[in-house]
């Protein structure tokens, strides 16, 4: 019984990390129709930056702040100076973000080296919680809490604000938006930065759990893709439910069928594609 509970908690906490990534990806796509492949890099860079900050200052909080702000700015710069030029040219935008993915991967390798690292948890989150006869790191509950908090914020943002309404309406209403006085260019940059911020948050928070290492960007990108394929690209609900689903499947899969780890990702993806290609909550 406790074993199931532990796996469930692990799965959901991992799922929350995936949610952060998928939400960022979905947000950017939903408004700008850009598939941001650099998303994996944002995760990785944030992890490394957070690591450096923790090593320099000892503060986990500062690490989160520095990493997320830095990466958000990076994202804003990318959008402003590169992606904007190819407005509505999907392939060009995809290729650009693809190019940046490789550049950042190599830069990270260059700067931080090839050894896998872990971000040290702050003392107050290093404890454990007893679940039956098992023990679960407190950190995992922290992740779940953060995930839910971010989810709630994003939900409010999407449903309760004018900007959110714009996001929901999507790119087609650009003309109307401009007519309403919304600065669409600024909005695009801000939303892109927000997406990057979320990926970065995932990167720093994921550091203690999953480690930071070359290749994490590609692995995390794959998982984010699976989540949006399952949950539906452009849907916040999809990102959350998809994230939790994939997190649970991944955890239970690794626990019970360790050699078939990849299949636990492949199968839900294949099933969704066969049955409902736009994802559980996707539109189109």
């Amino acid at each position, binding site marked *: 019984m406790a074993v199931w509970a532990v796996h469930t908690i692990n799965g959901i906490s991992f799922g929350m990390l995936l949610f952060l990534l998928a939400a960022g990806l979905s947000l950017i796509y939903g408004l700008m129709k850009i598939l941001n492949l650099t998303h994996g890099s944002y995760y990785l860079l944030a992890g490394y930056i957070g690591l450096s900050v923790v090593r320099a200052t000892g503060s986990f909080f500062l690490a989160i702040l520095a990493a997320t702000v830095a990466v958000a700015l990076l994202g804003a710069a990318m959008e402003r100076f590169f992606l904007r030029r190819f407005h509505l040219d999907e392939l060009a935008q995809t*290729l650009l973000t693809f*190019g940046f993915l490789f550049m950042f991967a190599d830069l990270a390798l260059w700067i931080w080296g090839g050894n896998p690292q872990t971000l040290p948890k702050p003392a107050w989150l290093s404890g454990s919680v007893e679940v039956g006869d098992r023990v679960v790191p407190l950190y995992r509950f922290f992740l779940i809490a953060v995930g839910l908090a971010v989810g709630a914020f994003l939900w409010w943002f999407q449903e309760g604000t004018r900007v959110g309404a714009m996001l929901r309406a999507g790119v087609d209403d650009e003309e109307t938006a401009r007519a309403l006085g919304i600065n669409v260019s600024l909005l695009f940059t801000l939303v892109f930065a927000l997406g990057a911020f979320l990926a970065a948050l995932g990167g720093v928070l994921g550091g203690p759990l999953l480690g930071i290492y070359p290749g994490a960007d590609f692995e995390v990108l794959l998982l984010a893709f699976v989540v949006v394929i399952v949950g539906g690209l452009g849907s916040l609900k999809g990102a959350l439910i998809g994230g939790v689903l994939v997190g649970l499947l991944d955890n239970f899969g690794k626990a019970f069928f360790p050699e078939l780890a990849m299949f636990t990702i492949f199968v839900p993806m294949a099933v969704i*594609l066969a049955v409902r290609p736009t994802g559980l909550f996707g539109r189109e």
Partner: protein
Amino acid sequence: MKLVAAAAVLAVLIALPFGLSEYYVSLATRMIILALFAMSLDLLLGYAGLASLGHAAFFGVSAYATALLVLRAEWNPWLSLVAGVALAALTGAVYGLLALRARGTYFLMITLALAQVLWGIAFGWRTMTGGDDGLPNVPRPDVVADTVRFYYFTVLIVGLGALVLFRIVRSPFGYALRGIRESETRMLALGYDAWLYKYLAFVLASAFAGLAGSLYAYYNKFVGIDYLHVVRSAEALLMVILGGAGTLVGPALGAALIVILENVISAYTQRWLLVLGAIYVVVTLLAPRGLVGLVLEKWPRSK
């Protein structure tokens, strides 16, 4: 005119080993194999208009199958080659069913995800694939074991493959693919079952990619997870874009260019990936239709 050019190219290819050292013959071999890989992707991207980020899946599946059959099951290397291609085509048949359920961005994501899954399987299944150590000592077929003979063998096989591809793109099927690329709704309204054409293109492209993969396995005498990695897919995509999608010739040239670049850059620095990414960015910013596109703009074809 085109026939003259083709004959000239063939002449150069045949004469090559007489003028160059083994190192360069080997390099040329690599260029030619990857040219096939790039051309197979061009069928998908340049002709059918399907941008795939996971083409390495078929390259790698065929390579691994061929290597495993030769090493573990001690099959005849020719049969292993054919079996590899068959498996790549089968993978394409399955992946095509899944990926073509979606279009545009979703399609892109799915192709990447599907290829990454294979990479993950290869990485994790150490007992079968050797994990990140890979499969060393893959023996070439005896009769083409040395560098020069293998080179001619490659020229022959890739040449034949290229001929078939050229045939395909000039056929009604090839025309239809271009129509689908230009306007799928129009094609549907005319009575074409667009899905079927895209699917056939997908499977064909995967078969040719597989052929390239197995050739590469014999060329390298080694198969590793880099065969399946997204970087491999990215290089192929860049070759197509750099050379000019939708021309077959362009991607082949793009392949040669990328191989040369990689060779030169890797001699000075380990930062090939950084350069690759930078090239992507620069090419997208400057020349979206690729080098062949630039050439065509100056000398427009009349039909």
